């Protein structure tokens, strides 16, 4: 009593209502208007459109609520045991002095995302949907491709810029999709419609720019993975950063590290192609040149062969031979000797005379000179004994 009396002046005095109001005021002034809360959902209950949660970290727990108005804009709704990251503010109900965390935004914690990834991966692996041998070859020169990404986005800008530099011959069909949060059903519907469309696509790219791994949870969705795994044309994924691997990447036909890499991998390079093309051109033109040169050569050879068989040549060769014989004969003919002053002496019958003994006195002799002949009578003969 004494104690109560003595401290009456220094102690504030409240009614219950006043106390609760003061606490509320203090919290409002002294506590951060917004904060981030990490925890695990230990209880989750949907009541009258509001989501009631109990969050814990193993040492302590707190109640939280996501109002129905907030739930509509949430991209992720947690289940029991999910690790979550919550953007929150503090609610204090003055009438009961009750504290509750009001959810402004909620995301899965990385542990939750990775857990889901592992669960879906294991399931699809067991079903045989994740298998390198199922990956189809990408078209070499795609005529027309589908780009599934958010519009506008830096991923799309990167893709279009790269495509223009790399291979402007491919028609780009941009199909806007929502790549944030939990829009698995929406993406599934788009993929399903694309199966039956008449766009004559040769391949599709599913792209999403960087962000945290938690933001890519959509691509760990089982229904999306199943759509991709059974898609009728090749699917290239370019999701997140280099290190991010989603279930969609595992079931796609080609996994690129980023959106830009996806388009690089899918489209041929115009520079390389120009080089190849120039080579083909050179080979082709060389072949034509080679062919005509060969034809010309073979024609020339035939011409030479033909000419060598001509009767003129034969005649000429005979003529040459005759000429040679004639020359030979000529060289041996006595006419030449006669011209040099020698004379050929024969008897009247034209028989050669080899010896003095062959003739007698009074014989008639014929003396041939180069320009005519003389008939002579023998006066005398002298026989020289050698």
């Amino acid at each position, binding site marked *: 009593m004494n104690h109560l009396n003595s401290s009456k002046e220094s102690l504030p005095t409240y009614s219950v209502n006043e106390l609760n109001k003061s606490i509320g005021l203090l919290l409002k002034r002294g506590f951060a208007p917004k904060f981030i809360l990490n925890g695990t959902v230990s209880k989750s209950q949907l009541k009258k459109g509001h989501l009631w949660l109990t969050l814990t970290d193993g040492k302590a727990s707190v109640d939280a609520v996501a109002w129905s108005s907030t739930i509509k804009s949430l991209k992720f709704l947690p289940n029991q045991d999910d690790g979550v990251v919550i953007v929150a503010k503090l609610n204090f109900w003055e009438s009961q002095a009750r504290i509750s965390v009001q959810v402004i935004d909620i995301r899965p914690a990385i542990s939750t995302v990775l857990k889901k990834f592992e669960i879906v991966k294991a399931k699809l692996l067991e079903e045989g949907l994740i298998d390198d041998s199922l990956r189809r070859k990408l078209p070499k020169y795609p005529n027309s491709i589908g780009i599934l990404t958010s519009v506008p986005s830096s991923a799309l800008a990167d893709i279009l810029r790269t495509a223009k530099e790399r291979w402007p011959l491919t028609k780009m069909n941009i199909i806007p999709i929502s790549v944030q949060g939990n829009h698995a059903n929406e993406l599934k519907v788009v993929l399903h419609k694309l199966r039956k469309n008449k766009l004559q696509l040769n391949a599709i790219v599913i792209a999403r720019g960087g962000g945290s791994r938690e933001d890519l949870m959509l691509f760990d969705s089982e229904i999306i993975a199943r759509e991709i795994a059974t898609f009728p044309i090749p699917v290239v994924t370019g999701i997140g950063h280099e290190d991010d691997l989603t279930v969609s990447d595992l079931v796609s036909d080609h996994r690129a590290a980023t959106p830009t890499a996806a388009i690089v991998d899918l489209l041929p390079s115009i520079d390389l192609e120009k080089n190849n093309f120039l080579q083909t051109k050179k*080979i082709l033109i060389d*072949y034509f040149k080679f062919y005509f040169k060969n034809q010309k050569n073979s024609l020339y050879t035939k011409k030479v062969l033909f000419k060598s068989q001509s009767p003129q040549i034969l005649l000429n060769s005979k003529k040459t031979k005759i000429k040679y014989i004639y020359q030979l004969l000529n060289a041996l003919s006595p006419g030449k000797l006669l011209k040099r002053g020698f004379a050929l002496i024969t008897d009247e019958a034209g028989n050669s005379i080899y010896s003095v003994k062959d003739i007698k006195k009074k014989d008639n002799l014929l003396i041939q000179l180069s320009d005519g002949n003389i008939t002579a009578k023998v006066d005398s003969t002298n026989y020289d004994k050698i």
Partner: protein
Amino acid sequence: MSFPDESSKNLSSTSDKENKNHNIETLRKDIQKLNYEESISELETILSNVQDENISLDKIQSNYIKGNLLLKHCEELLEFVEQEINEINSEYLNID
């Protein structure tokens, strides 16, 4: 696509020439319709054709003309084509 038959040897040489020019024009138009992949594959066929030692002069001539037209077409595709970009709202996907 095949190169038009040129066996019109009974015709006089002028109409033969006109005929040939006409054929080349038709061929050029056909080639314009090909995309890059088809053109390259045609070129490869020609390449293997001309490597055949027994090819006839007629054939090499048609291959030569066709090869040159294809080369020109490919070059034009690589040089002058502008990318076609369409945005298709997914709502219209099943209408297409």
